[in-house]
């Protein structure tokens, strides 16, 4: 074996006579295809629970750029068709491309004009196939998606999750991101299937508050989404009531006066 087989010369095994190595400056990335290897602009947790008569989903409105709180007012939930809402954590741009896919799908469905519409479960399944397909290309869409909906005809609510591998499942309560570690145990403890809307709302808000306290990539500006017999609704951003941080503000002020 000649020395050029050694990519990382070890001390004492240096090739003194070989071709000059590429310097750091002339290093260019190979023509390898570009793909998402790390998410760049990311949303944190999404949490959602079924209650007696519908589903509630909650998430904050922050999209971070690494550790920088970059975009403070981004809606991380979107409605597709009349009975489905999808919330995401992970790469913002990937979700925007998913948005295009789903919007096209919904419009195609509407153009057929046969009075049938994609059910929430169908959209969930479609997303699972799309994400699985991309992971098969080792070019994933870097998202955890929470899909929820309510079908007025059958009076049934739906809650499901899809991740970047294409793993998908339905459950009564779902959390993504840090929520998986922090909110999910809380949900398991507090959850009961015959919760009222108010109880469910409170549970979600409490979880979001805990997440705000502990997840450094979260914010206290949150949005709740509802799916129930009254239809679908995505609330305007709400400021969570949290521990009073005024002391910090006061400190800055007094610093100013010095």
């Amino acid at each position: 074996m000649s020395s050029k087989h050694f990519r990382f010369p070890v001390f004492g095994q240096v090739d003194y006579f070989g071709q000059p190595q590429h310097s750091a400056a002339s290093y260019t990335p190979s023509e390898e295809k570009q793909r998402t290897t790390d998410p760049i602009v990311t949303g944190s947790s999404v949490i959602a629970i079924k209650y007696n008569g519908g589903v509630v989903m909650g998430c904050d409105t922050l999209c971070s750029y690494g550790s920088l709180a970059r975009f403070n007012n981004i809606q991380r939930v979107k409605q597709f068709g009349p009975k489905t809402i999808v919330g995401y954590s992970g790469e913002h741009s990937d979700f925007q491309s998913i948005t295009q896919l789903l919007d096209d799908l919904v419009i195609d469905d509407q153009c057929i004009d046969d009075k049938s519409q994609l059910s929430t479960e169908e959209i969930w399944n479609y997303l699972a196939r799309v994400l699985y397909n991309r992971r098969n290309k080792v070019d994933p869409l870097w998202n955890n998606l929470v899909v929820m909906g309510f079908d007025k005809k059958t009076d049934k609510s739906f809650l499901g999750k899809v991740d970047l591998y294409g793993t998908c499942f339905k459950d009564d309560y779902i959390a993504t991101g840090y929520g998986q570690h922090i909110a999910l145990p809380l949900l398991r403890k507090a959850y009961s299937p015959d919760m009222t809307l108010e109880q469910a709302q409170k549970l979600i808000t409490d979880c979001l508050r805990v997440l705000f306290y502990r997840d450094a990539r979260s914010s206290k500006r949150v949005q709740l989404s509802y799916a129930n017999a009254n239809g679908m609704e995505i609330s305007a951003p709400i400021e969570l009531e949290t521990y009073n941080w005024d002391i910090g503000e006061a400190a800055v002020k007094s610093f100013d006066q010095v």
Partner: protein
Amino acid sequence: MMEPLRLTALPAKEVPMRQARFEPYVDNGGTVLAIAGSDYCVIAGDTRMSDGGYGIQTRQYTKIFQLTNKCVIATSGMQADTLALRKRLETVLSRYQKEHGKPMSTPAISQYLSNTLYQKRFFPYYTFNLVCGVDEDGVGCIWTYDAVGSHERVKMSSQGSGNQLVQPLLDNQVGKFNQRIVDGPRELSSEQAVSLAKDAITSAGERDIYTGDFADIVVINSTGVHWEKFNLKLD
């Protein structure tokens, strides 16, 4: 003038190829096992789905999937691959039914699954399968696989995260290998097999963190496929 001293012997600084590659596989864990008799087949599988680490994604994901009324497939490993594999088998089976006017036999399914897995051996389905059921003669049968399609017909087998805990138990209690005293008839009755399957999956749940929550117990015999739910630890 003297040239500045250059340590030419030092290797040029290596630029590490920093490209955090996306790892396309995740192990969602779980245990499945099966015991075959002369006229039955018992299959058990837990319903926990882990996130690849210490987290549980859901407690309600069933690893056993009915293919025909004589055959089920029990799969542990990566759930997304499992679903893709199932969908593939499902479409092939329904086409077979339409073309041949009869469902595919369990032995035929077992060969087909092997081919399917082998075709994808350079980017395998990360799935560990048991094809279980009764064959054309009504005899209980199990095929056990690795991820790339190696397979073997056996009397009992287990797959998944609790495999190491369950397999020796089955070898001892069903295979009755290396026993000094073999008492009673060599083959378990269907009821005994169900009882053993429950004990085996519960035992796996004792030590394997990826096994738990609930278990599906499936019995296949001449009267069809019978499902039963069974509680495991929810820890």
